[in-house]
């Protein structure tokens, strides 16, 4: 244990004595999150919105009012048909159309299938996604308020029926680019890539460095168990990626106002599993190469196509079948999918069990392979 602790301390010394790398490790992730966040945020202001409201009732009015008074939205009037909105989109006069379903209020109160359709211009997918997401958020808030008001009389006489849950079915549709999903995908994606960079690339480089400078020779010729060497090498990067995760979450939550719809704990758990998988991948790479340069190149060769196949930039659904199959081996895909579900859709742990399982299986496979390849000798 003492051996291990002293080894971990040594690893931290290496990192702390190299302030430039440390700065990059800690600050780069923030820039990566802030930059696209900033760009998108500045674009998403002044959303010009029209409404198609066939039912004209109290609830639709309430929702329209809420959207219209919001700083981000500019009320552009009512339309009568969907075709009319398409025309407005084409002319570039509006950014978003809110289409209420028929008999909105009564359906909301009785059959719970009131629906709203959000139409956006899918040819600008990122902005469209943000616009839809904002509208969605406001509609959700409106729904909660409606629900609270509607539930109050029932609270006076709590019966067996309980509170009827209300559900507005918000559906978004991208015009002109129907495949594009609406999502605030960049945060989960960037977290996924950063973790891979730090855990996978940095760890593999750190392990290989010992081999390159010759210190591995002394370590191997010592009674230090190889497992200690490996674990001690992983520890600092585990810490750094955890710090990064936390700072990114604080940043998105408090400064960029990107909400965390699901449970924080669930997200954290998923991230830790993903970090484990990435660390194991880094370990595996380090067992296969002998130079830091090679470790870095292999990491990049895995990370870059990984970005394309992870669904961060291009939706997986629109990829050719072969690419879709291959994307399953990219850990980032599973992480991004899980974090989108948790952060944006707000689902509970059981709904991301497939992703978590996939990450664990991959992590264990990487671990076993590294175990097999890791040399207790030099060759």
């Amino acid at each position, binding site marked *: 244990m*003492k*051996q291990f602790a*002293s*080894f971990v301390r*040594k690893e931290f*010394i*290496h990192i702390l*004595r*190299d302030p430039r790398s440390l700065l990059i490790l800690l600050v780069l992730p923030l820039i990566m999150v802030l930059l696209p966040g900033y760009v998108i945020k500045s674009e998403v202001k002044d959303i010009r919105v029209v409404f198609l409201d066939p039912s004209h009732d109290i609830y639709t009015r309430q929702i329209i009012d809420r959207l219209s008074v919001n700083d981000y939205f500019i009320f552009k009037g009512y339309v009568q048909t969907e075709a009319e909105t398409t025309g407005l989109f084409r002319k570039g006069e509006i950014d978003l159309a809110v289409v209420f379903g028929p008999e909105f209020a009564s359906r909301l109160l009785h059959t719970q299938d009131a629906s709203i359709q959000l139409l956006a211009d899918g040819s600008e997918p990122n902005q469209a996604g943000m616009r839809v997401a904002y509208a969605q958020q406001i509609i959700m808030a409106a729904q909660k308020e409606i629900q609270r008001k509607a539930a109050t009389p029932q609270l006076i006489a709590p019966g067996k029926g309980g509170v009827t849950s209300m559900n507005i079915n918000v559906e978004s549709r991208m015009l002109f680019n129907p495949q594009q999903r609406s999502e605030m995908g960049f945060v989960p994606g960037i977290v996924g890539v950063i973790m891979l960079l730090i855990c996978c690339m940095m760890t593999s480089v750190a392990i290989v460095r010992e081999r390159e*400078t*010759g*210190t591995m*020779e*002394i*370590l*191997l*010729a*010592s*009674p*230090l168990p190889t497992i200690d060497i490996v674990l001690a090498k992983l520890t600092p990067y585990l810490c750094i990626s955890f710090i990064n995760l936390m700072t990114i979450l604080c940043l998105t939550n408090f400064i960029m106002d990107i909400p965390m719809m699901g449970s924080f704990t669930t997200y954290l758990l998923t991230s830790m599993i993903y970090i484990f998988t990435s660390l194991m991948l880094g370990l595996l790479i380090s067992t296969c190469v002998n130079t830091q340069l090679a470790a870095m190149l292999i990491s990049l060769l895995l990370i870059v196509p990984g970005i394309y196949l992870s669904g961060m930039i291009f939706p997986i659904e629109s990829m050719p079948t072969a690419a879709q199959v291959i994307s399953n081996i990219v850990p980032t895909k599973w992480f991004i999918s899980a974090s989108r579900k948790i952060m944006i859709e707000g689902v509970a742990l059981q709904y991301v069990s497939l992703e978590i399982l996939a990450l664990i299986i991959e992590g264990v496979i990487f671990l076993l392979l590294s175990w097999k390849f890791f040399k*207790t*000798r*030099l*060759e």
Partner: protein
Amino acid sequence: MSIVSVKEIRKSYNKGRTQALKGVSFEVEPGEIFGLIGPDGAGKTTLFRILTTLILADTGSASVDGYDVVKEYKDIRRHIGYMPGRFALYQDMTVEENLSFFATVFNTTIEENYHLIEDIYEQIEPFKKRRAGKLSGGMKQKLALSCALIHAPHVLFLDEPTTGVDPVSRKEFWGMLQKLKRDYNLCIVVSTPYMDEAIQCDRIALMQEGTFLSIDTPQNIIADYSETLWAVKSDKMHRLLTDLRLTPGVKSAFAFGETHHATIDTRQLSIDGLTAILQESGHKSIDISIVEPSIEDCFMNLQKL
């Protein structure tokens, strides 16, 4: 019992294309300084790596401190000190941090075996807060030796500890090794490309291209030298070498510091005879004497065969 025992070790790289060791055998006794003397590419580092359990030999067997290098490598790793050929310490850590790190790696503390390294470490202690990367060559070498000694190993393996080091520091380093041997009866296996360091060892193996040319005490190797060796000097040293090589009866001639060493077939040539020949070719201040061969002469003589 031998501390190190090597039997018919062979090792090749690149799927057998490069034969690094072509079947070497030797024993090292307790309290002995054993030298592997040979140029780069002789196979010294490969041999060290096999003995320090870092690589596996293709065939043959070896044991260190009574343990087999293949099966009982973990026991060996507990009891050996190893200083690889390159300066392999953490450059970004201070002198003190390096030493205490290696002490913990070997499950010991600096205090526990301080007496072993005291003489060596004292010289670098004033710089204990300095990063290892900023030390001079001689000090790095002392730090590396301290780190290799900190756990009181039974055998010390030093791979070319004096390469690239100036003659004064080299002499000092050998002084430290002699003291370790004298005071602690430590067994040291050391390699060097500098032939003049051979006399510092109790026994040596002259190595070339994966084989031992000879293995014995330096004195015996010199005594076994079969040629007649002359040291020849004149006022035109450079031309003298060419002229010597052209003289019948001179088997070989090489520059050797301020004189040239020539091996002579005494049936064909006498000192007076050579003097006459050289005078005839215009050399002046000719000085020829019979010399005792050095290890380098022996190496060159064996190398030719």
